[in-house]
């Protein structure tokens, strides 16, 4: 044992401390009494007399606060009664007095290793306190609701069972109160409060609010046996069934069927309208497609025509040979100018100029150049062909003379001599109509010329 004076270890057989000389006789009796109460508490705990165990263990600790076994067992008993905080308190104090090789460590760890369980236990305590507040305020319904939840969270909470039982008893719910007390008594068989409330229930007059209180406690789980009675045929039930069926058929025939038909007709009409509208839209689309196809054909034809026209266009600028005759004539003319005047020969240049199609010429400068060349060259060439033609006329070669004279006329249509001898050649050839044409040309257009008089006289002499 430990000497209470010097805390040194002393043999159990010794009555005095070897170290400090303290008389241990009284202390040994005190420790013996503490152990005796611990054993008593243990016996009560084993038979679930938790309340009695608490009393014995607390007495044990009053004798010896260092009795670790008694304190650990007290913690276990508290925990079994739902007093979580009291249990933890005892275990922590136990560990304080005996830090090593103490079962309290195991108990504390077991609680702390499951935080969810610990939180549920704490929630149960908080709700119990809330329920107690409601109960003291007279809000029994709220208190009962809270207590039911408390017992779900901690089904060993003896205090909650007691409070719930007293609230049930207060509200006349005797059987519920009895069930609560029975559950509490299964946890703590000889709890004074439980027994007192049970005794109160036993004294309650028979015929409680629920009608079940009249039953004794022992018979509460026995179901009442009803007497045997043979079923008689119930005609009214059959009649009611027939009436119900008839009403159902009538409702179906007069209300539901017409409604269904009306809906079907409406649906069909809607379908027809939708179909007609769709058909009209389809026709409209087909007409639009046909019109577009026609327009497409027209446009394609127009494109083809334009393409053909475009292909047929010969761009003047693109034709490299268009201006070649003009350039050739100009070049030859420049060559001829370099010669002496009597050696010049413009016949080839005149032939080139005469064959140029000026309609294809768009350049104004080129047209001006052609006109200038013609003005310079054509009269000269015309006179040359006139001389040749006049000589042939003089040799009585009138037909050959006409070829040259016409060339002279074509190169210079003001060459009145060429016109006169054309007329004379036709006259000699007795082609009087042709001769008349050219005589009249002189008379009408060249009245001031020296050939006028002769032409007029020959015109008069022509036979009609």
């Amino acid at each position, binding site marked *: 044992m430990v000497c*209470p*004076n010097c805390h040194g270890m002393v043999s159990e057989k010794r009555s005095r401390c070897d170290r400090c000389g303290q008389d241990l006789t*009284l*202390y040994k009796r*005190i420790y013996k009494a503490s152990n005796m109460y611990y054993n008593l508490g243990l016996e009560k705990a084993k038979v679930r007399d938790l309340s009695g165990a608490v009393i014995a263990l607390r007495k044990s*600790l*009053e*004798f*010896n*606060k*260092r009795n670790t076994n008694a304190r650990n067992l007290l913690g276990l008993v508290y925990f079994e009664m739902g*007093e*979580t*905080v*009291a249990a*933890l*308190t005892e275990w*922590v*104090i136990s560990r304080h007095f005996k830090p090593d090789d103490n079962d309290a460590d195991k108990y504390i760890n077991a609680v702390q290793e499951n935080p969810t369980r*610990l939180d549920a*236990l*704490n929630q149960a*305590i*908080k709700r*119990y*306190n809330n329920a*107690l507040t409601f*109960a*003291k305020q007279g809000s029994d319904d709220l208190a009962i609701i809270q207590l039911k939840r408390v017992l779900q969270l901690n089904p060993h909470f003896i*205090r909650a069972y*007691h*409070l719930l039982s*007293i609230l049930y*008893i*207060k509200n006349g719910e005797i059987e519920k109160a009895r069930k609560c007390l029975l559950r509490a008594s299964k946890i703590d068989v000889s709890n004074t409060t439980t027994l*007192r*409330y049970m005794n*109160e229930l036993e*004294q309650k007059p028979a015929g409680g609010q629920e009608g079940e209180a009249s039953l004794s406690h022992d018979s509460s789980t026995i179901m009442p046996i009803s007497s045997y009675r043979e079923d008689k045929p119930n005609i009214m039930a059959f009649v009611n069934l027939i009436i119900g069926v008839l009403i159902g058929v009538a409702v179906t025939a007069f209300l539901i069927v017409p409604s269904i038909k009306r809906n079907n007709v409406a649906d069909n009409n809607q379908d027809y309208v939708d179909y007609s509208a769709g058909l009209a839209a389809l026709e409209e689309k087909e007409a639009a497609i046909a019109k577009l196809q026609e327009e497409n054909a027209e446009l394609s034809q127009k494109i083809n025509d334009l393409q053909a026209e475009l292909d047929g266009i010969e761009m003047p600028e693109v034709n490299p040979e268009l201006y070649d005759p003009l350039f050739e004539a100009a070049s030859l003319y420049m060559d001829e100018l370099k010669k002496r005047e009597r050696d010049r020969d413009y016949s080839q240049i005149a032939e080139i100029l005469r064959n140029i199609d000026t309609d294809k010429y768009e350049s104004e400068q080129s047209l001006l150049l052609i006109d200038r060349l013609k003005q310079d060259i054509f009269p000269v060439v015309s006179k040359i062909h006139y001389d040749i033609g006049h000589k042939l006329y003089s040799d009585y070669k009138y037909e050959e003379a006409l070829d040259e004279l016409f060339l002279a006329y074509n190169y210079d249509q003001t060459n009145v001599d060429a016109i006169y001898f054309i007329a004379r050649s036709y006259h000699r050839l007795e082609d009087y109509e042709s001769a008349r044409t050219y005589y009249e040309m002189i008379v009408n257009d060249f009245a001031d010329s020296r050939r006028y008089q002769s032409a007029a006289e020959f015109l008069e002499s022509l036979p009609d």
Partner: protein
Amino acid sequence: MINFEEEIEKFQPSPEIEQAEDLINNNDLTDISDILKALLKDKENNSF
């Protein structure tokens, strides 16, 4: 017969886990050994 109001008033709030530390610190751990030691100590003081 139980007086319900008085009976309910007897119920005390259960200490919550947050209060455990205060409970441990304020716990009266005096036992008979302590009392005996105090008595013996007083006796010794008075004898001198």
